[in-house]
């Protein structure tokens, strides 16, 4: 039942030439079927576009997904809630900390559990750092796609600094598995907040410099302005979210509209685009990084004291190691949670968080106990890509590269 593509058929083409036309007076072209990907530098992983071309113009575009379908949802049904945290790292592997947080909050909503203010603040800082890191990568890859190699090197360099901070906090560069249901794995190390603050201070001028490489760059603008325009109505109808939706002028940002994890305490602006083209989506990402820095600075300025995990959730959060090793009660508590998983009531929740790529949703169906009955992951990249057949049809093949770069998707999350 695959999409039908017309293949070059010179005999049929010749038969179509009008009788009066002398051969050779008018250039006759044939449609060409071209597969881009699944191993192609500008498909950011393993997306494949099956395209039909008339000269350089796309007449049809059929994205083929699933080259990174690893069965995350099935895996989730077979393990306890905490055991699934590492798999959330590998959904959008550019912003694992944001995924960790979204998943943890979804399950906490199911348990009707509120985490303390300090835990929320830690999660907000890490999520915003993840946003910066993800947007930097998106920016670098976008630049690379349209021929600006240096942007990638600039952004990789900043990402290394972020990785160093992540590593200090979580022990891993980017597969962090940092949250647990009801808290985080450990408190922030001493002096870490100061180092994050220092990173933010030095990052802003570098960000400006990096953005200057592209923002008024003639080549970049020629490749992106007016290309891949997505109207407001289309963006909503196809379920686009994140910078791609805001680039089209819809100010939907769940951090503002449906605040979670204490986002309502922080001041930040939601940038929106005016035309919905590739350039607008790029500008929105650039501005979001500045806003993320602003949020991080606010969180650090009023970083709350107190417990960093839900201390009363005895059947959900395994206590820290020092307590497990010194107290019998906590040892048993730890044993129960490790063996049975965090105990959840029956019910179903749907929670969405504003992730760098868009809105990441977790639909958890529980029949009670420590294992989810069904876990559906609403992945932003999947929805964002679903508009491709619409916006790619009729554009030049070189524009496809710009459009893919501006949509900034991650296949790990798209295919799950």
């Amino acid at each position, binding site marked *: 039942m695959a999409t039908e593509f017309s293949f070059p058929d010179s005999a049929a083409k010749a038969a179509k030439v009008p009788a009066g036309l002398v051969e050779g007076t008018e250039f006759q072209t044939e449609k060409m079927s071209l597969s881009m990907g699944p191993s192609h530098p500008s498909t950011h992983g393993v997306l494949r576009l099956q395209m039909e071309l008339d000269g350089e113009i796309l007449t049809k575009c059929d994205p083929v997904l699933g080259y990174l379908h690893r069965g995350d949802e099935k895996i989730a049904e077979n393990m306890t809630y905490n055991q699934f945290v590492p798999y959330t790292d590998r959904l959008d592997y550019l912003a694992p900390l944001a995924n960790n947080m979204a998943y943890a909050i979804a399950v906490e909503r199911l348990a009707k559990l509120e985490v303390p203010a300090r835990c929320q603040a830690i999660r907000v800082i890490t999520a915003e750092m993840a946003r910066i890191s993800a947007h930097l990568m998106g920016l670098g890859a976008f630049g690379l796609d349209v021929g600006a190699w240096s942007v990638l090197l600039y952004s990789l360099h900043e990402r290394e600094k972020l990785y160093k901070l992540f590593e200090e906090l979580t022990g891993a560069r980017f597969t962090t598995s940092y949250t647990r249901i009801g808290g985080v794995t450990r408190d922030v190390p001493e002096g870490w907040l100061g180092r994050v603050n220092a990173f933010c201070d030095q990052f802003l001028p570098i960000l400006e410099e990096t953005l200057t490489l592209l923002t008024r760059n003639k080549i970049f603008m020629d490749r992106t302005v007016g290309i891949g325009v997505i109207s407001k109505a289309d963006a909503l109808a196809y379920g686009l979210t994140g910078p791609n939706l805001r680039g089209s002028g819809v100010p939907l940002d769940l951090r503002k509209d449906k605040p979670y994890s204490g986002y309502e305490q922080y001041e930040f602006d939601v940038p929106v685009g005016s035309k919905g083209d590739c350039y607008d989506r790029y500008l929105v990402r650039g501005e979001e990084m500045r806003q993320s820095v602003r949020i991080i600075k606010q969180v650090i300025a009023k970083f709350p004291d107190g417990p960093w995990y839900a201390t009363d959730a005895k059947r959900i959060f395994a206590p820290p190691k020092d307590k497990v090793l010194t107290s019998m009660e906590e040892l048993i508590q730890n044993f129960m949670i490790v063996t049975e998983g965090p105990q959840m009531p029956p019910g179903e929740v*749907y929670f969405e968080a504003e992730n760098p790529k868009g809105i990441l949703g977790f639909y958890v169906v529980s029949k009670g106990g420590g294992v989810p009955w069904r876990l559906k992951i609403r992945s932003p990249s999947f929805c964002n890509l679903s508009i491709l057949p619409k916006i790619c049809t009729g554009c030049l093949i070189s524009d496809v590269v710009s459009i893919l770069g501006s949509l900034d998707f991650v296949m790990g999350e798209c295919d799950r």
Partner: protein
Amino acid sequence: MASGNESTSTTATELPLAFLRGKGLAATERASSDHPAVDVPLGEVVVALGHLKSEQGFDMLMDLTAIDWAEGASPRFTVVYHLYSTTRNVYVRVAANCASDTEPSAPSVVSLWPGANWHERECFDLMGVKFVGHPDLRRILMWDEYPYHPLRKDFPLAGIETALPDADVTAETGTRVLSAPMAGGPFVATSGEINLTEAEPRAKDESWADRRPRPDQEGLKQVRE
């Protein structure tokens, strides 16, 4: 923009249900731990979602999925829609049970939201729910010739032996799609037991090969022997 505070969500709790009833639809309340949720009969899904979209401002279809309520359960498959209103900042969950437990199908909502296209293809691919009226219903994540629907509860996590999508590569490398080695796992504990021996995690029962026929029973016997 207004924040999604408590007052808006409590007024919205009754709204979708009362609204759909007011439209003459046989909607019933659905148990939910967070957002307002309604059950509607399968035949009225498109109408109900259409009303919610046009009159209640639910302009985004956030998610579309299906749940398999265990093998042998009836109704076995439930299709679930999550809508979001960008103007009112509220969610609603609409669910509909599929009539058939073996050949589930549901009406397609691509006419309301073009974005439902891929969601329905995914749901068909992984759950085997056929969406009637879908313009192009084919697999999206697994390859076209894949014979199973992996998210169904009777499908084992490890997978079932089958052919690779590409015959050339099979011929060259001799590789097929094999069951993943589970090493006795995945390990799952029964909950709520204070008796530690009982609470010890055990391998989840996937011994369907012994107790009941496997989808490709003949093929499996040959592989095992």
